């Protein structure tokens, strides 16, 4: 298995509390890592560090064996990050929202159109693609954000509480997508309080656990 993301002695402190202490995490292709811990234990902070949004840490990050600072562009091209806030504009339609995300990944015109429609179909928003997002329910808006997972090919998904506001059926689907993605060689790092019911080995990382 190819080594993707690696943290070396990663430490992170917020307001005098050490949230992540000497974390040595190796994420390989086909692995699912679940970050666990109570509220406020630094799960989101850790994911923001791993994605490169936060620079308030000590230690080193490596992507495919090279120092992150050198290969940041390559890393971003292969990363899909889904945070707490979804990045969905309420006054735009799901299609318009996703076309923008596709363009940021360098996809345009017909390729992008086709990809966006397949992605929307996959997350169950077929027929809603041209309705403004504020008319959709919270769960449906979350699904618009989830559709980003299927735009372009990334090697790593970083998902922060992906199951928020998703219905039972949707949770099952998302679990299936995650397992399917891992089986096809993708790596997933996620946080969730939900008991994962996935047909795939899960590596657990415990934060703030004493």
């Amino acid at each position, binding site marked *: 298995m190819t080594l993707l993301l690696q943290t070396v002695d990663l430490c992170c402190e917020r307001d005098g509390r050490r949230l992540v202490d000497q974390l040595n995490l190796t994420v390989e292709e086909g692995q699912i890592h679940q970050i666990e811990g109570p509220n406020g234990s630094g799960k989101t902070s850790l994911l923001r560090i791993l994605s490169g949004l936060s620079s308030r840490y000590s230690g080193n990050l490596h992507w495919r064996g090279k120092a992150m600072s050198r290969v940041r562009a390559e890393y971003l091209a292969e990363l899909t*990050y889904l945070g707490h806030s979804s*990045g969905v504009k309420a006054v735009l339609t799901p299609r318009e929202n996703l076309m923008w995300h596709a363009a940021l990944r360098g996809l345009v015109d017909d390729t992008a159109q086709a990809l966006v429609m397949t992605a929307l179909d996959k997350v169950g928003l077929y027929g809603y693609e041209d309705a403004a997002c504020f008319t959709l329910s919270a769960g449906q808006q979350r699904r618009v954000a989830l559709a980003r997972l299927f735009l372009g090919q990334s090697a790593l998904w970083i998902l922060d509480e992906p199951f928020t506001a998703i219905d039972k059926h949707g949770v099952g689907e998302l679990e299936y997508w995650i397992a399917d993605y891992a089986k096809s060689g993708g790596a997933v790092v996620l946080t969730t309080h939900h008991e994962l019911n996935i047909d795939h080995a899960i590596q657990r990382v415990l934060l703030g656990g004493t």
Partner: protein
Amino acid sequence: MAAYQPVGIGFVATLRRDLLLAFRRRSDFFNPLAFFLIVCSLFPMGVGPDPKQLAILAPGIMWVVALLACLLSSDTLFRSDFDDGSLELMLLSPSSLYLQVLAKTLAHWLLTGFPLTILSPLLALLLQLPASGTVAMMLAMAVGTASLSFIGAIGAGLTVGLRKGGLLLSLIILPLYVPVLIFGVGTVQAAVDGFNYLGPLAVLGALLALAATLAPLAIAAGVRISVDN
């Protein structure tokens, strides 16, 4: 895997998206314009309708009000993107952040500075600005407000992470607005007095060239700092 892609795609997409957003939320778009119109039309009532007096004050009034209109609207530049997480995704996208903030700033100018420029002849008439100054006013407004958008975006990028950045934003960017104000008024004044106004206009152009090339670096850095927590 497209690690390197044609650079313009993200720029065009972000520009188009921001214009579309403004079109869907038209009230936001009209705010600075209404401010510009109302405040300028208050001046003849405040200082008296004497055409001579107004004509002397007109260039200054119009520039100060345009400055404040730009200041008011610059706070919203990154606000909604920050709130809904789009800004994070812009930072994490493989497209260049420089081009994306450039696109956002250009969209901001198209939605504030450009309409202000279009409106300025009307206001010039209202404030009794001599007709010889109208063309100079429009040219100076077009070039000057673009610089104002860039300067405003620097402040907006730096303060977007703060809950109450309003006053701080004004403190950061108002001093930087001053050169634009001086040469903006200078251009119009020169035209009104019958001199060649290309000199001060060229200085405005130089300021814009400087802002358009260097400001996106500062804006991008500011946005990065704001999101980093």
